[in-house]
């Protein structure tokens, strides 16, 4: 069975040398979707060890190519080793973020769990998760911030949890009157937290505390 051995990072992610940031992002998602642990495409095709190696290679490739300076150094290395033509450097520098194209449409069937797991390793996400869990009271806006930082769409959460998009929006927007009965809400919150890979028990408790506070003035 062939592995990614002897393939360079561009080949691993199936990208041309001049791929831009959004193409790299997309290729990484697609690779996780195919090689992720729960992917239907490769279900039981690889042993755990083989899959681990493949995912590690994909990760290395992504983290190198997604970082402009690491990528430049890597390109330099490829040219030195005679594995790439010097024209590799002709690629236009990325435009500033403001002018960058909109985030690509979410890949519908990607392995969401693997994606969130990967993203959660990023420093920014770790800090955000810790900040939210550090609070006694958790508001819908906190969950929304985390979801957006993880680049997860509401539709994708619906696909897995079957919690309707409008309910998720109401939870995120703290629309107290539109929320389902507490017994359902609690279970929705836990499912939602599981997707976002943040402690489900504490998320549910924190949010219910928020609701209790929010309802109080209304009663007066």
């Amino acid at each position, binding site marked *: *069975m*062939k*592995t990614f051995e002897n393939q360079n990072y561009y080949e691993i992610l199936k990208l041309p040398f001049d791929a831009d940031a959004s193409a790299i992002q997309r290729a990484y998602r697609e690779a996780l979707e*195919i090689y992720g642990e729960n992917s239907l495409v490769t279900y*039981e095709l690889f042993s755990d060890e083989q899959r681990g190696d493949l995912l590690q290679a994909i990760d290395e490739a992504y983290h190198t190519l997604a970082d402009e300076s690491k990528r430049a150094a890597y390109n330099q290395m490829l040219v030195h080793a005679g594995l790439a033509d010097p024209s590799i450097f002709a690629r236009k520098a990325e435009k500033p973020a403001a002018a960058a194209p909109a985030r690509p449409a979410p890949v*519908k*069937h990607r392995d969401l769990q693997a994606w969130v797991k990967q993203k959660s390793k990023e420093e920014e996400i770790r800090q955000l998760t810790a900040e939210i869990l550090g609070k006694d009271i958790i508001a819908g806006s906190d969950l929304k911030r985390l979801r957006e930082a993880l680049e997860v769409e509401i539709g994708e959460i619906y696909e897995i949890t079957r919690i309707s998009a409008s309910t998720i929006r109401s939870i995120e927007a703290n629309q107290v009157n539109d929320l389902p009965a507490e017994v359902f809400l609690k279970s929705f919150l836990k499912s939602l937290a599981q997707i976002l890979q943040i402690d489900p028990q504490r998320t549910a408790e924190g949010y219910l505390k928020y609701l209790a506070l929010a309802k109080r003035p209304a009663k007066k």
Partner: protein
Amino acid sequence: MPVIFPIGGGKGGVGKSFISANLGALMAKRGHRVILIDLDLGGSNLHTLLGIKSPASGLDRFLDKTENRLEQVAVPTHISNLSFISSLHCSMEIANLYHAQKIKLINAIQRLSYDCVLLDLGAGTHFNTLDFFLASDRGIFVCTPEPTAIENAFRFIKAAYLRKLKQVISHNAFHKIVKDAAQDNGPQALRYNDIVDIVLKYDPGMEMFLRDSIRRLQFKFILNQFRKNTDSALGEKIKTVCNRHFYSPFEFLGHIDYDERVTDSILSKNLFTLQFPESKTATDFRAIVDQLAPKRVASHTTVKVP
């Protein structure tokens, strides 16, 4: 020499017999002379799909030497140009076919005077099933878009791939160490990924030969019982991944749409694609036949029918 399409797939109930019968009927409708052989030894039911209650003759009469030629045990079906060889009356022990009988059968299949031969294989990865699958390099595996079916399909592919590797090694002048490794069936039996490494280490001159031989083995596959909410790119993704990680080429033939009327047509012993030719399912079948047997072979009228 006929074009042989073995139809396998590892898991039971994914529709191997249903697909064999319908592909056979559609190929026959296009003017090809087609023969369907039920090689699900011990689990035959292709005759039922074809609406034949008890076939007048069958494989048993060829294996016990009552008839010398495989053609003689074929029976006609109600579809013109479509013949059928049943294994219904084979003895209870038939699933464990003797090696010599298997070789004789495979040789006879390869010499059948038909345009297309479809072999309906049983579930599982028994080595007889694998050898029938490898009787041609156009094997088709059928699977459904479910983890269980995909798991068994991959196990089937790996088993067929490994058996092919071993065959290539035992029939050719490889280094003794390589040959010994290939024949080791014990608990330390090698996995398909090790054998190329062994060849590289002890027999680097044979590496390209081995790769070329495996490259000639093609895997084609069909995703059956395809429903609306399934990822429509699943087949293409499986193809891409397999082409990336196996040395053999993979080709995705297409989906076959799930239709709840299939059960009814099996119950009424009608072939679905002929009963509902306008259905999406029948259209899917025709698209697959377009790839496998596009049009009637022009030279076939000149072929002598003995």
